[in-house]
């Protein structure tokens, strides 16, 4: 009984971590974006909302709770209401395996931890379909299709890149993956880290892949018809996913809770992990603040013609190089260095390939008729 109670409290505590973190993170991202746009963001001009308006998010949450929940006529009520619930549930469900610290700060250290993360993330697209379909709105349905195409497409390079740390550490258990990173995998296989990161950005629907919510194009995409807290649920789930993705990336490629003096003070591990996740999260925020939006065909082309083949190549190269290096029984540092070199070479090859293909595209796009403006700083545009 005592064990059950402790487990219950632990699970409850862990489930509340993303919620509490998000309150802070929403405020923080609004401040950062505001500064990048040369304005102030949430301040205390007006109603007081805590020091530096820290509790702005709480105030917004309370406001959104009291907004009327409008269900469009003809909509499928059950599915319509279920969609935001599913989105939030899935977002929180991933946290069952997140290792916040070296020992015990984890709900369950599943043997298949990494695969659990993958499996739970793959439940997200269907909630979008539910939202889009039940709204009985053409914009919402189109938005749902585009968002789903994007999300399921980018799952492939994401999982393929995730296989690289699994390969190198020989386990799906997240704690094991962390412990195998005497050198963070991001430094050993930077290409895999990069492809995982880019795929995650697309999975999250962050700019430049922000099709699902393209404000100026299809209103609000698949959640056009949602108002009040149901919209708030999508928004909340979006930020929770951002935070989760940052933490998962830190666990997989940045060494998780590893850092100086963790052996002496285990709690410091939590601090290191949160710090790394925070830095990754801010990279995502900067993407949001600074990048333009890609078109749906660009997004999908980038995935299937570049990122997926690249992640396949990365996995193949890493597997082969690592096996050959271990077969030659070299020192561990030489192994890491060898993998790093292989990754960098592959990255350079990918960039070269991109530039070749890109040049062909540019030449194809411009009509080869003299006199027509090409928009390029070309010398052959009359």
């Amino acid at each position, binding site marked *: 009984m005592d064990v059950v109670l402790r*487990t219950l409290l632990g*699970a*409850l505590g862990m489930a509340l971590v993303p*919620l509490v973190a998000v309150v802070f993170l929403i405020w923080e991202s609004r401040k950062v974006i505001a500064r990048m746009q040369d304005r102030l963001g949430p301040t205390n001009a007006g109603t007081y909302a805590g020091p530096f308006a820290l509790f702005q998010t709480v105030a917004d949450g309370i406001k959104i*709770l*009291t*907004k*009327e929940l*409008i*269900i*469009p*006529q*003809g*909509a499928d009520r059950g599915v319509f*209401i279920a969609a*935001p*619930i*599913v989105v*939030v*549930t*899935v977002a*929180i*469900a991933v946290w*069952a395996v997140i290792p916040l610290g070296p020992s015990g700060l984890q*709900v*369950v250290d*599943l043997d298949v931890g990494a*695969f*659990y993360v993958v499996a739970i993330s793959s439940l997200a697209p269907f909630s979008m379909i539910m939202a889009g379909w039940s709204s*009985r709105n*053409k914009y919402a*349905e189109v938005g749902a*299709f585009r968002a789903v195409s994007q999300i*399921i*497409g980018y*799952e*492939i390079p994401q*999982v393929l890149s995730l296989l690289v740390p*699994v*390969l190198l550490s*020989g*386990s799906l258990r997240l704690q094991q993956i962390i412990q195998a990173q005497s050198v963070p995998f991001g430094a050993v296989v930077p290409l895999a880290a990069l492809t995982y990161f880019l795929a995650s950005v697309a999975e999250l629907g962050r700019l430049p892949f922000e099709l699902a919510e393209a404000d100026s194009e299809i209103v609000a995409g698949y959640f*056009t*018809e949602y108002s*009040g*807290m149901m919209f*708030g*649920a999508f928004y909340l789930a979006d930020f929770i996913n951002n935070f989760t993705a940052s933490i998962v990336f830190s666990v997989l490629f940045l060494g998780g809770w590893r850092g100086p003096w963790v052996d002496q003070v285990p709690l410091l591990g939590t601090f290191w992990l949160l710090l790394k996740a925070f830095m990754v999260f801010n990279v995502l925020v900067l993407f949001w603040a600074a990048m333009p939006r890609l078109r749906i065909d660009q997004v*999908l082309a980038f995935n*299937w*013609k570049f990122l*997926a*083949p690249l992640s*396949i*190549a990365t*996995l*193949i190269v890493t*597997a082969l190089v690592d*096996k050959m290096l271990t*077969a030659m029984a070299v020192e561990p540092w030489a192994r890491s260095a060898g993998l790093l070199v292989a990754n960098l070479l592959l990255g350079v090859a990918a960039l070269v390939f991109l530039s070749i293909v890109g040049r062909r595209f540019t030449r194809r796009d411009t009509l080869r008729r003299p006199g027509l403006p090409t928009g390029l700083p070309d010398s052959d545009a009359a």
Partner: protein
Amino acid sequence: MVHPYAVVGLFLAIALVIGVVPIALAWLLSPKKLNPRKTQVYESGNPTFGEAWIEYKPQYYLYGLAYVVFGVEVALLFPWALAYDQLALFAVVEAVIFLLILGLGLAYVWRKGWLAWM
């Protein structure tokens, strides 16, 4: 010792509760003054016409299909990745062949221009 899967199930239940609570709270706290104008489906101010269906485009279905195809491949690679440490180079090459078959298939399709819609 609580069985790990039971804990996962418990956690999922908690996650579900967290999902439901805000909606339930909002339903309690929000006004309910519905009128026909509010519940109209949104179409930039114009009343909707026609049923909400969209044109058939094979593209959307094909993305799902591509996901399933590559998903099966990736799923089969998970056990291989776990056994990697104990495998000989030959075994790794076999898995590479596995990956290359599909990878080259993708390249072939790309060259043929069938990916043009992507």
